[in-house]
């Protein structure tokens, strides 16, 4: 047979599995620490106050504060990669640093690069808008500020502009996580970055699967990095979503599906996955977390901008289940978006009800935002990581602060006291305030 035709036949049946996982979250900088914190029910949310002790603009947040950007934060590294990362540390924005750390962990665990060159390994990542660092402009603004303390724009072109770091602009590009990961590791496959807010991670994973299924890459490093903590990210998010405004007890601030939920908690985080063609993974004896059984995305927004997340999420779940060949009753667990706002959680629970009917009250549901807050694009990825770890460990972790059920949310969050099996499949759900929904279905490999 002609090589092209046999390639088409071969790729028609290519299946995609996860062989490596990395995570950087407010509750853990490694897979092990992350899982521990999830099952022990530790919250990463802390109260904040301004430097002068006055109330801070953000009353509480989940920061990956142990992540200092030190080279030791990046996990085990080959000497050449370590050298390259160290050299670039100052050029990378925080979102990029988190992504690189997660990506290196995933690559190291998978071991895929030891057996395949980088030419057919792609990167498809999700990212947020990269907030500018005010500090990068401090020198420039000072240079143009007169005695009266006023900034004089007329002086920017002659005196301010030259104070800006030559590579400043590159720091602000959302594709830098995907690019640095490719550069550090020699990954010359297709390379893309999805910037679609909270659904970015699932969309990036879906695109990574297409690349492998269509035979365009043998492996793809995927995942997402994100934040609602940095100034512009939070300002943009505040126009769209309800965030917690006061916070006497930070650890109880994020409470998805609880009756008394009062808003999302700003956060940051990243996670990465090595996706690989099943046969290649089996041939090299890789350890498999699970198979990406299907993915789907849908949108429901009208011309005036009114969004209907319940409708799009239900549609996305139905399509995903159908593509994966799963029945609602055979789904092991749901990883909800679980934003902890009145509206989004009710929309989400409604969609789950629409698709799962009475099963909605049986299928266990988790929401890692209860531990680690809302890191926009990053959350979809860290939540995926949490559920993949649960699949491997065989048990689920609790939804923190789920105390009083809300009749508007007829779902079954895993409570703190319960020990609930993870089942052998899950759906990772995300949605945005603009009516975008995405769903990825994962099946345990052993169950095939």
């Amino acid at each position, binding site marked *: 047979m002609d090589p092209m035709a046999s390639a088409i036949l071969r790729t028609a049946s290519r299946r995609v599995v996860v062989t490596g996982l990395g995570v950087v979250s407010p509750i853990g900088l490694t897979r092990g620490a992350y899982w521990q914190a999830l099952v022990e029910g530790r919250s990463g949310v802390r109260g904040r106050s*301004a430097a002068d002790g006055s109330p801070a603009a953000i009353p509480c947040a989940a920061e990956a504060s142990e992540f200092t950007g030190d080279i030791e934060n990046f996990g085990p590294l080959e000497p050449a990669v370590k050298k390259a990362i160290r050299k670039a540390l100052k050029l990378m924005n925080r979102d990029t640093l988190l992504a690189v750390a997660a990506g290196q962990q995933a690559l190291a665990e998978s071991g895929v690069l030891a057996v395949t060159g980088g030419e057919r390994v792609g990167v498809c990542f999700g990212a947020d808008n990269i907030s500018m660092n005010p500090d990068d402009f401090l020198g420039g*603004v000072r240079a143009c500020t007169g005695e009266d303390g006023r900034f004089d724009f007329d002086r920017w072109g002659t005196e301010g*502009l030259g104070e800006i770091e*030559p*590579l400043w602009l590159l720091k602000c*590009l959302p594709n830098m996580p995907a690019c640095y990961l490719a550069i550090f590791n020699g990954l*010359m496959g297709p390379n893309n970055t*999805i910037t679609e807010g909270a659904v970015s991670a699932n969309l990036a994973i879906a695109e990574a699967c297409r690349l492998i299924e*269509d035979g365009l890459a043998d492996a793809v490093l995927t995942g997402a990095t994100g934040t609602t903590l940095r100034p512009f990210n939070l300002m943009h998010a505040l126009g769209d979503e309800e965030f917690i405004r006061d916070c006497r007890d930070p650890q109880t601030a994020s409470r998805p599906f609880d009756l008394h939920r009062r808003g999302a908690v700003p956060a940051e985080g990243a996670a990465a996955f090595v996706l690989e063609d099943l046969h290649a993974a089996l041939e090299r004896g890789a350890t498999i977390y699970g198979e990406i059984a299907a993915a789907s*995305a849908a949108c429901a927004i009208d011309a005036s901008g009114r969004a209907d997340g319940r409708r799009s999420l239900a549609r996305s779940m139905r399509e995903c289940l159908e593509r994966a060949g799963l029945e609602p009753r055979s789904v092991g667990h749901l990883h909800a978006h679980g934003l902890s706002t009145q509206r989004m959680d009710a929309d989400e629970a409604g969609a789950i009800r629409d698709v799962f009917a009475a099963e909605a009250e049986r299928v266990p549901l988790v929401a890692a935002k209860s531990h680690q807050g809302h890191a926009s694009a990053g959350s979809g990825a860290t939540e995926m990581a949490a559920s993949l770890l649960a699949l491997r460990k065989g048990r689920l972790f609790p939804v923190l602060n789920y105390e009083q059920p809300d009749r508007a949310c007829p779902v079954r969050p895993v409570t703190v006291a319960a020990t609930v099996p993870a089942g052998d499949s899950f759906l990772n759900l995300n949605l945005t305030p603009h009516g975008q929904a995405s769903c990825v279905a994962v099946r345990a490999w052993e169950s095939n």
Partner: protein
Amino acid sequence: MLRRRVVITGMGCITPLGHSPGELWPALLEGRSGVAPLTLFDASRFPVRIAAEVKDWSPRNVGIDGRFLDNAPRQTQFALAAGLQAIRHAGLPSNRVSPRRLGVYLGVGEPFEDFTRFTASISDAARGGACADDAFLSSALRIFDPETEREYEPHRPATHLAGLVNAQGPVLNCIAACASSTQAIGEAARLIRRGEVDAMLAGGAHSTIHPFGVTGFHRLSALSTRNDDPRAAVRPFDADRDGFVIGEGGAVFVLEELEHARRRGAEILGEIAGYGSAQDAFRVTDSAPDGRGTVLAIRRALADAALNAEDIDYVNAHGTGTLLNDRIETIALKTTFGPAAGRVPISSTKSMLGHSTTACGAIELAVCLMTVRDAVVHPTINYATPDPQCDLDYVPNVARELDVRHVLSPSIGFGGQNAALVVSRFDESSRSAAAQRAA
């Protein structure tokens, strides 16, 4: 098994040389420059005072009622205007396509915040010395308007467009620097081929004509400083080139599965025959000296189209006019075409439109479609002095009649991003011939 073919049935664009493909094309064939003194802000004391601006633009040109448009960045306005043009051109009111089988995939770049408010927030927050995020945020929350700010997320244009055309399938935006809209179009085509959707609105838009844009690109030493002679400033492949000129604009297309287009009797403007994406894996600042990422992206696009390099009749180059890009792109094209490289006409749309960054690949797709339609290629203007390192046929200064079946259109971006499209004149038999060859 024949794979589903992806054709283009609608196009729209907003450019420095016209607010539609019909206005743009004659200007390009005449070799007019869209570069002029920069007017969008007072650049009189900037080292760079020229740009290729979209002229006579107002949010009203989008043709919809929407107060958000006045707050939205120019690129959002361009993306929506181009998208609505494309839908009208395709004759595709929503009842001709199932909303769930229609998606959106744009490559709209990162928007820049208001410079005056940004610097005011810094001045306000930095009284104590450093400018910590928290202090900045407290100031910025007073100085910026959250209603406006929500329009400054890169996903907003795609979501707005989905609402306006009732697209209920997958809605995405990607950012891959200057390869963004090329990748958006290529990935959108893949969604159609795989049968996940029947039609996609795909393209991109961007504007970095902004104090931040000029600051950033000038600090990267990327911009031409030929301020006294704006129309001659972009000189791709010429020995005296000194950088690119910032442009802006957007282009959006209706990509459609061939049988779907046929059933509704749509006019077919051309075919997305192939697409490839690759990474240089070299440096974030510049391409590998051998252009390896560009070569890989082109080879992948040709393989995807089941075409050989010698099937390509014309190259619409990335052609930015920087010293390094044009030299490395030339090397990549020589590697692609071998000894025949000198016989393939190559032209740079950016010689007239400047560099619209993430939007350029989409605008150049409009050019490719009009090239295969009219059998004429536009020139590379300002070509005066040959550069020994750029010694191919760049169609200097004058348009050329040429029967073009297959166009290659590469895009190259910061970060090592490379993508390429192969765009073909629609031909019933050509693809089945290619498919037969493959079988």
